[in-house]
């Protein structure tokens, strides 16, 4: 697979996902495709199967897609979707939402492959703030 790995931010809140995307753009630049699936189908707090599916399709740029859920049903819905539509180029990652996304976006901006970007997100569990 060639191209930059894309990221999908799955959150209960559209504002949270959009805000995180804004942060990623500042830290990692515009080279990384970051799409969001925030809230439910009606714009409220929750999770939407269809929004996640669309966000994954939108983020795909040849290098693979890493899906980062915030918690709870975001995780379960993304997991269900990927189990029903398995794709080796799309991976759900278990990582802290903000730190994992920042670490992944910066590494993706270096042109790293999907394995490396996923590892960077997971390593965020070990990053202390102080």
């Amino acid at each position, binding site marked *: 697979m060639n191209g930059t790995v894309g990221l999908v931010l799955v959150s209960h809140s559209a504002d949270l996902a959009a805000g995180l995307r804004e*942060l990623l753009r*500042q*830290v*990692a*630049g515009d080279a990384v495709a970051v799409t969001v699936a925030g809230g439910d189908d009606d714009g409220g707090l929750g999770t939407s199967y269809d929004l996640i599916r669309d966000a994954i399709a939108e983020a795909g740029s040849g290098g693979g897609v890493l899906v980062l859920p915030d918690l709870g049903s975001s995780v379960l819905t993304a997991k269900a979707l990927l189990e029903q539509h398995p794709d080796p180029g799309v991976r759900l990652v278990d990582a802290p939402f903000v*730190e994992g996304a*920042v*670490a992944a*976006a*910066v*590494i993706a*901006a*270096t*042109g*790293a492959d999907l394995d490396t970007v996923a590892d*960077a997100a997971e*390593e*965020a569990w070990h*990053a*202390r*703030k*102080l």
Partner: protein
Amino acid sequence: MPESSETTVVLPAHLHARPAGQVVVTAAKFTSTIEIVYGAKTANAKGVLALLSLGATAGETVTIRATGPDAPAAAEAIATTLRTTE
């Protein structure tokens, strides 16, 4: 035997999220291992969260340590990135 290179930079601005991201992107262009040392803390220049956790602020001096075949160029490139961040 790998080459080693060390240089210091007085940070013109806090090593916050955006410059840390630029350091990682620059570091990824080199094969050398690159570390940034601030006080008692050391961070791999290829890890943005580690760089942020240094808590290095404007006016402080950090040391860049590169080890590997392209160490001098790597250390210089990181120094330039850090000197020119806002």
